[in-house]
């Protein structure tokens, strides 16, 4: 192990306890931040409403593209100051297409400049980043067939040895079926690279498909080869369920079967969030739905092969988030985007869930507050959405938690249907310490999608998988955030997508670091902009 400075065990212990239940404080700055975007549209936009968060200006501050539904998407350049109020300026980027349901950033061509994937009601579009927050259509150059579906989910990875990414795109119901749309789920598509070329082959249908609202390439069993998790909306499928696909290099995608241990689960699947909550090396998955949500923890057999079998621990952990906790409504909730981030920097990730009625469904809450579930040291969570200030009653859909003003505290943006997107600045005064890292490597997969980032804290190792996908039609690239509690330094390493384990290195708390492969961490100062 290559330690810059050996860490004191004493320094690492008791991290979580000092700020274990600190309730974060968020200040809504929608009106002053310069954001004015509404996710519009009728039936074909009842799902969707995403946001892509990425830095396209090169200053380290996350910019964003907000889906507009039937209206054009809007791009906002981040002009916030470090630690200051959130400020954005709308700018023309070339990404202002209409019919956009969701957006994900990804450096597709490996040129070090973020590209964009736009999920649309109609043809999907990939946009090549030209630098300086300018984008141009690249469907034809990259052989990307955009199809003509109602696309509502995305995930990406680089298969072993590939020069181009593999994109999974999830589709919803056939929007042309008016009277009997149920059971008319459009096939999902797997866009793999064309052999030996830096462009996509014709997409493979992922049959059967069950009206997907979230997808995630994730190495659930740490085999080194990610599988594709697919969350499906039972409102529309017939004979469907949640899915897990084998996506092995050079082989046709293949569903995990009951014989392989996959357990049938049928929910109104709308979003996937993942994190290694149990510090056991394997990701847990939070699945959003209507009424009760699910938190799946891998069952670890005492002997034998690891199977994709999960216990639902949502009830035990206090994250069912099934009903409004404030506002007076008692009907069940409707959950969309979910994301784990440590919003109080106590070393324990918390869970944000965007909430909002589908469309005037009277049996579900109309005023449905977002959840901010704070993790306690015992692994359970408690609700703090109202006290933290993010319990919006607007009709939430996609969202992103990101440090927009680079002060080490994770901020929040939520896209609302038929209403303005909202943005909150995390102004917690009693937050713990933190570290944020950007990982990069040479070659086509510049941002190391599929890597694992690990941070040691006492006798546990916090870790997160550097994924591209999941959530509800919302994705982000850039800084990966870890709360450190009261530690003033941390050990950190990356397990790269090819399985090579980087060296442990010590970094000081409250800093940004670029972790390049085979290199020492390099501190980065946001004030240098």
């Amino acid at each position, binding site marked *: 192990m290559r330690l810059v400075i050996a860490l004191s065990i004493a320094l690492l212990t008791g991290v979580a306890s000092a700020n274990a239940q600190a309730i974060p404080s968020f200040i809504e700055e929608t009106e002053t931040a310069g954001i004015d975007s509404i996710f519009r549209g009728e039936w074909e936009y009842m799902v969707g409403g995403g946001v892509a968060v990425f830095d396209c200006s090169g200053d380290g501050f996350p910019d964003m593209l907000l889906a507009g539904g039937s209206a054009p998407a809007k791009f906002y350049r981040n002009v916030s100051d470090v630690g200051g109020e959130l400020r954005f300026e709308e700018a023309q980027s070339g990404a202002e297409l209409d019919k956009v349901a969701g957006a994900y950033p990804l450096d597709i061509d490996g040129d070090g400049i973020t590209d964009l994937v736009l999920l649309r009601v109609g043809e999907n579009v990939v946009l090549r980043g030209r630098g300086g927050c300018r984008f141009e259509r690249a469907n034809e150059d990259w052989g990307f067939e955009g199809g003509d579906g109602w696309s509502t989910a995305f995930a990406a990875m680089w298969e072993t040895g590939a020069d181009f990414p593999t994109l999974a795109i999830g589709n919803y*119901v056939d929007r042309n079926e*008016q*009277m009997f*749309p*149920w059971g008319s789920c459009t096939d999902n598509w797997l866009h793999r690279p064309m052999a030996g070329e830096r462009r996509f082959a014709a997409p493979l249908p992922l049959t059967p498909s069950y009206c997907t609202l979230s997808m995630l390439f994730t190495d659930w069993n740490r085999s080194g080869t990610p599988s594709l998790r697919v969350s499906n909306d039972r409102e529309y499928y*017939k004979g469907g369920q949640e899915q897990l696909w084998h996506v092995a290099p050079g082989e046709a995608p293949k569903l995990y079967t009951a014989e392989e241990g996959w357990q049938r689960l049928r929910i109104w699947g709308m979003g996937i969030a993942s994190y290694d909550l149990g510090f056991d090396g394997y990701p847990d998955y939070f699945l959003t739905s209507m009424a009760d949500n699910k938190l799946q923890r891998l069952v670890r057999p005492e002997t034998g092969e690891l199977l994709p079998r999960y216990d639902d621990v949502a009830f035990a952990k206090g994250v069912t988030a*099934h009903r409004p906790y404030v506002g007076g409504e*008692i009907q069940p909730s409707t959950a969309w985007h979910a994301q784990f981030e440590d919003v109080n920097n106590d070393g324990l990730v918390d869970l944000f869930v965007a909430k909002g009625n589908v469309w*005037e469904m009277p*049996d579900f809450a109309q005023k449905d507050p977002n959840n901010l579930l704070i993790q306690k040291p015992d692994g359970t969570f408690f609700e703090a959405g109202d006290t933290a200030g993010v319990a919006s009653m607007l009709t939430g859909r996609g969202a992103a938690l990101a440090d927009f003003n680079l002060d080490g505290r994770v901020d929040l943006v939520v896209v609302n249907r038929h209403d303005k997107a909202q943005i909150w600045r995390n102004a917690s005064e009693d937050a713990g310490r933190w570290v944020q890292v950007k990982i990069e490597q040479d070659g086509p997969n510049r941002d190391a999608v599929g890597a694992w980032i690990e941070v040691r804290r006492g006798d546990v190792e916090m870790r997160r998988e550097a994924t591209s996908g999941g959530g509800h039609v919302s994705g982000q690239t850039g800084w990966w955030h870890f709360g450190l509690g009261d530690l003033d330094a941390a050990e950190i390493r990356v397990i790269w997508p090819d399985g090579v384990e980087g060296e442990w290195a010590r970094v000081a708390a409250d800093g940004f670091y670029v972790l390049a492969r085979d290199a020492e961490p390099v501190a980065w100062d946001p004030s240098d902009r």
Partner: protein
Amino acid sequence: MNRIRPFLAALILIAASATGIFAQERPSPDQILHNWYRMVLELVRHTPTYSPPVASRAFAYLGVTAYEATASGGGLASLSGQLNALTPAPEREAGAAYDEAVVMQAAMAFGVRNFFGNTGPTGQRAMKAMEAQLSKLTAADLPEDVVARSVAYGEAVGAHVLDWSMKDGGAVVENMGFPFDHALNDRPGAWAPTSLVVQQQAPLLPKWGENRAFAMPTGASCPLPPPPSFSEEAGSDFHAEALEVYETSKALTPEQTAIARFWSDDPMLSPTPPGHWIFIAMDILQAKKADVAERADLLARLGVALADSFIGCWHAKFEYDLIRPVTYIRRVIDPNWQPILITPPFPEYPSGHSTQSGAAAAVLTAHFGDDFAFEDATHVDEGLAIRAFPDFWAAAEEAAISRLYGGIHFRAAIERGLDQGRCIGAFATALKTVE
């Protein structure tokens, strides 16, 4: 012996094109009824409050709506005075012309729109599309005054039935049927929640058995003997019943597994158990090209029998408030036991599917006769194979025993549920419909 190979998907009316546009043919009343029921089977599945009891209620009221709309045209006796608290339907204008297709269309559109007013945006869109298209086709080439009069009358029948429905005790379903406050019984052997879903820590619709019944006097009209005395002692009758469920689950054959899955009929994922029997009836009626009078008669009787079944069954369920196999077996026999079906969130005794299947078999046998062989294609679009039965009771008995294979019911609940269904079904078969 009759043998009908039904094919529901082959609709007479709906030769729907890729854009969902109907063939430009003027539909007959029976075709309109069939297509609205096809829609209802989807709406039941996709409307979150539509648990099986709630679904059965809608089938009853919509069946009566169709029946009264048809009967008012002549030749059939009204069900008013036969069904509890149902008053005579509005009278037609003497000597005036009505179009029966328009009457049926207006009545069913009104009924479906109101009973499924709480469905989601896609269901709303689908209902509107069907109403617009069928209304346009039925009115084609008819005099305006006939259309207006017929629409008004059909809607009046729909409103009459809707008004009748509002005070039956089942009109308002909150929180998907799960009470916000419910005191669990701490008696040994009492039902305990079986789910990790927070909403389901209280049982579904505990007051449903107090609803006004349709053809039977009350929910208590077909009582059951108590279940075997609760005991955790090995060798007791109760323990023996639990052991049967456990041991059966451990040695399930592929056929038993298929049977359990076929009759699982989970709410939100299928037309529900009452919808399953409605599908069977529709399929047979469609295959034999039944006229509207026969369809309306059978769909009303069957809907009434199914709805009364859930009232009677729920009355007994909350009288006995019995523990589910999964709770007992994990406590007494095997803490790691897992049934293959999801245990429904309400007490065990009697089995709801058994009661309502018994009632359905009684009604269908009375209508089509003994030894009426048929094939059941309810779940073809779910990928489940068609199952064939020599008669309706064979299907009902298979539906009933499927709950033991699925690990969610003991034998007593199954056998006595069928008995209760036979008793309840007799009230529906006794209804007089021929003048």
